[in-house]
């Protein structure tokens, strides 16, 4: 397989892993094994996959409440993530975090976040630590359109810009903050226009094609690694479903949903593979591998022990 084809195949595999992970998580939710808030990344896979494909392992990401896709793209193991979602002792955060706080410091994912835009200043700080150490790593700070009106986003944009920090702000414009469409809360056509106010470059790209997203990362990465500062990349995408697992999303017009489904990010990556000459049988092998991985992930999570209450009590009494 040529290098580029192999890289597309890897991206396809990651995107489908995210897709299947979310579907399995929803199943586990319906069974009552996962509780609380679960925000699926269905339909937005190309953003995480494309953005992270352009990174080195030592680069950081800072995620959001809709964070499973970011984590899987950054190399999190589905079984350890599923275990965290089930609140098990074997999860990334030993059951203390759950879906909204999945993180892995080892993989340099500083974590999902329960507060919209709340992680963005942390991303700027991680970039500051990189700058202080004189490293050339970058931080990708994910957010969605709901963050675009929040002060933490604006302060983060400005701080990253004035200190020329290595941050790439990847704004997943999926058109909604819960049920509120972005046209009700922003009067600009493209949210990337916000970048101009902070003296940083801003671009808007097709967020459903992972190859487009990956390509859009190139210049911002060069810029960041050269110490020239941040960039805002707005990825236009769509949530293929409600805000969280219990939201039927009735406010989303049917034709709008259909339009976006016709441009499904996993389907688009699959088509790229076909176009690159990869045989259906080979693609089917990938699909098969993921099914096995998911079966294992779910089983591992279910079989894993609950965190011990005694351990928890001992930990907090020391604090």
């Amino acid at each position, binding site marked *: 397989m040529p290098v580029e084809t192999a890289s597309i195949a890897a991206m396809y595999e990651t995107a489908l892993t995210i897709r299947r992970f979310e579907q399995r998580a929803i199943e586990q939710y319906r069974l009552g094994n996962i509780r609380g808030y679960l925000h699926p990344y269905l339909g937005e896979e190309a953003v995480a996959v494309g953005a992270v494909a352009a990174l080195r392992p030592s680069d950081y990401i800072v995620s959001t409440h809709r964070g499973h896709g970011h984590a899987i793209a950054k190399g999190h193991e589905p079984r350890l993530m599923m275990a965290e979602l089930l609140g098990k002792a074997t999860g990334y955060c030993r059951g*203390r975090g759950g879906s909204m706080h999945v*993180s892995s410091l080892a993989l340099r994912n500083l974590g999902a*976040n329960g507060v919209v835009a709340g992680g963005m200043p*942390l991303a700027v*700080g991680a970039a500051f630590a990189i700058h202080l150490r004189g490293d050339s790593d970058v931080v990708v700070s994910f957010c969605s359109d709901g963050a675009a009106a929040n002060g933490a986003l604006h302060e983060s944009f400005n*701080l990253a810009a004035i200190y020329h920090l290595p941050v790439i702000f990847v704004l997943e414009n999926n058109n909604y903050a819960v049920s509120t469409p972005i046209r009700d809360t922003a009067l600009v056509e493209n949210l990337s226009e916000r970048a101009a106010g902070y003296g940083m470059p801003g671009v808007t790209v097709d967020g459903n094609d992972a190859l487009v997203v990956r390509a859009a990362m190139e210049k911002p990465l060069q810029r960041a690694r050269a110490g020239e500062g941040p960039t805002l990349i707005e990825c236009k995408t769509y949530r293929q479903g409600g805000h969280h697992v219990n939201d039927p999303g009735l406010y989303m017009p049917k034709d709008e949903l259909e339009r976006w489904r016709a441009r499904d990010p996993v389907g688009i990556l699959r088509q790229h593979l076909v176009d690159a000459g990869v045989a259906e049988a080979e693609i089917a092998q990938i699909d098969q591998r993921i099914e096995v991985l998911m079966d294992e992930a779910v089983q591992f999570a279910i079989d894993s022990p609950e965190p011990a209450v005694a351990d928890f009590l001992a930990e907090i009494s020391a604090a």
Partner: protein
Amino acid sequence: MAKIKYRDALRIALTEEMERDPLVFCIGEGIAERGGSFRVTEGLLKRFGPTRVIDTPLAEAGFTGLGAGAAIAGARPVVEILFVDFVMLAMDQIVNQAAKYRFMSGGQGRVPLVIRTQGGAGEALAAQHSQSLEGLFYHVPGLKVVMPSTPYDAKGLLKASIRDDDPVMFIEHKLLYMTEGEVPDEDYVIPLGHADVKRAGTDVTVVTYSLMTLRCLEAADRLAERGISAEIIDLRSLVPMDTDTIIESVRRTHRLVVVHEAVKRGGIGGDIAATVVEQAFDSLAGPIIRVCGKNTPIPYNTSLQRAAVPSVDEIVAGIEASMGASIPVR
């Protein structure tokens, strides 16, 4: 041993820690070029350069979060927020992000962040520049709270706070910056969670911290003239709190007065009183008395401000009341 000002002791602590560890940096409004509103960071820019001594725009949430993120990623930031009143703009980053990060990550991540700020009623700065808000941070699991009263403590506690792997709210008092005290030249740290008996006594235990320590000492001098021996315990750090020292003292004196500038309602004094009742109820020979700030925003007018925070007279009266004297305490 030299006699130096509280603000100089803080600067020495910052300098020593920045010399020791290249990952320590200072960031805040006007701290670099201007050297800070209270001149604590004066000269640091020249010594350590603009990568480690950084002026910020007026974006408290942003640069506090920057500190938290840098701490998670391995640095040791000292974020300065001009007034504790303005820390309110950064509460999400402190309470929801920094305080919980270690826990939420299942212990993977640590947040060695110090937030230096200053509070308290001072020179007629009115309601939005005079508050004592330590109770808010005291209430949040995951935060440490340090409030030194002397130059010696300021230096040793700031150094300990910078070396601590958890977020620390380090709250100075604006009326303490110009106070002087003996500070040894050597590199010492004062571990967090150790109260200091600033004056030994036998008749009554007075628990306090920050500026009120000075007023309590003055009150103790006055009471000594009348034959009352008050033990003054300066908590120095509120979280972790050295309850052992409080309990041990109360078991000897059988009386407790808690003094703080922060308003009485929902204040730390109530929590200390409850702890003593839980752990040393049988030692108490009389009511626990709290001498605290009144339940009001701090007024601008000087006489009104004076009435809003505990005075030496009120502390004396509180101690007498705890001894069973008939002087009423509000």
